[in-house]
């Protein structure tokens, strides 16, 4: 039916098709790895900020249990948290943002919102450490506010460390 050269060409194309299918199958198999699918670049960013800031506060003698809170600005543009701080301790509050397009603002209140212990802006993808020596035990409030991060991968994080105020 076919002459020799046509048959060779047909075999060549068949082999080529087989190779392409095998390559595609292999690619699919690695691409379908659930761990790789769940890989989140932002998580690494806040993880990085956490790692860097933790080194800094540990060097300053603070202790943290590493219970870092994170979230996305498009889900919660304003973040609120209430803390109980004790006189006799020193605290280091670490506020950070990753992959955000705009700077963020953070404020910390005490004495039933009468005292403003700090209020500052943070640049894109960075963290700041705020040190507090409470003069009274009681309730304190943290607010992290995005400047118009309605969508995107902008992420916030906060945690704290403490030490005896010797």
């Amino acid at each position, binding site marked *: 039916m076919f002459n020799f050269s046509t048959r060779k060409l047909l075999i060549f194309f068949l082999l080529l098709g087989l190779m392409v299918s095998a390559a595609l199958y292999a690619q699919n198999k690695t691409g379908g790895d659930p761990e790789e699918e769940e890989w989140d670049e932002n998580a690494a960013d806040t993880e990085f900020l956490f790692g860097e800031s933790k080194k800094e506060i540990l060097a300053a003698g603070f*202790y943290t*249990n590493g219970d870092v809170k994170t979230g996305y600005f498009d889900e919660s543009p304003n973040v*609120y948290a*209430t803390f109980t701080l004790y006189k*006799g301790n020193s605290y280091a509050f670490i506020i950070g943002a990753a992959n955000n397009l705009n700077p963020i603002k953070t404020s910390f209140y005490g004495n*039933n919102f009468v005292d403003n212990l700090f209020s500052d802006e943070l640049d894109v993808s960075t963290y700041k450490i705020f040190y507090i020596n409470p003069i009274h*035990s009681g309730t304190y409030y943290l607010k992290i506010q995005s400047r118009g991060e309605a969508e995107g991968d902008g992420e916030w994080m906060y945690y704290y460390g403490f030490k*005896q105020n010797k």
Partner: protein
Amino acid sequence: MRVLKLALMLFLTAGLFSQEGLSDEEKAFFKSNVVVPVPSEIILALDMLSDINWKAIAAYNLSANYADNYKIALNLGVRVAQGFIAIQAEDRKNTAEMFSVCRDLAENFGAKSEMFVDKDEIARLLNEGKWLELRGILDDIHLKVKDEMYKYDPDFVVLASVGGWLEGLHIVSKALKDNYSDDASSILYQPELIDYFTQEMTYLKLMNSDNPEVKEINRIMPEIKRLCDVGQGNPIPLGAMNELYQMSSDISALIVSETKTGSDGGSEDDGSKEKPFVWYIIYGVLGFILLTAFFIKRKKGGE
């Protein structure tokens, strides 16, 4: 002069804008996310403000034998708090015991052995007096176990937190009633935390709240709030401190008691009552079979 006036006006305007006021609605948002402090925070602060002999005030309970999950969760919180006290007191024996009891209790909620540091490693750290490292390990276990408990039932995380907090109140009030100072007493002023725990306790499922321990906690929480609500910077009077100690001491005794109450304990009791009845049925059936066999054999023999 004009430049100075302009600068002053700019400065005042900037000042006005920076005094960003919070509306009452916005203030309410803060209460939706209350961060529970770790037990060592209050222990360290109290250690700083008062001359406490931690070895003398600490009392440990080594029991891990509880039938109901709600009670195991409450006791896990209590033992973790006692573990922190043992570390603060630099008490080798009781620190080791608390690590062991916490592990036994946590295993009920699916905590795996990988979560816990090896016993030999704990023993090494104890022998070398590495108290800071031990505190870190206990904190780490505390967090991981709470994560596991959350998967099991979020109610147990609330119960463990409340158990730990009440044990903290028990120890702190005990220390302060014996060694009172105005300055140190204000450490127990934590209104939002009390409100948070009170509210969380009302959200517990009936299966976890219909028991004497949780009912008693719900009863005393408003009392604790009343005694501690002195306003920021004000001392809690010694009389109130004595009342707080009595209340927290009673609830602590109720939590750690091994009396079997609630669903599981009840079913066990019912089971023990049912056992003889089951045996009567078994003996009855066996007797009937033997009698039937006897009569059949006799009938056959007669033929």
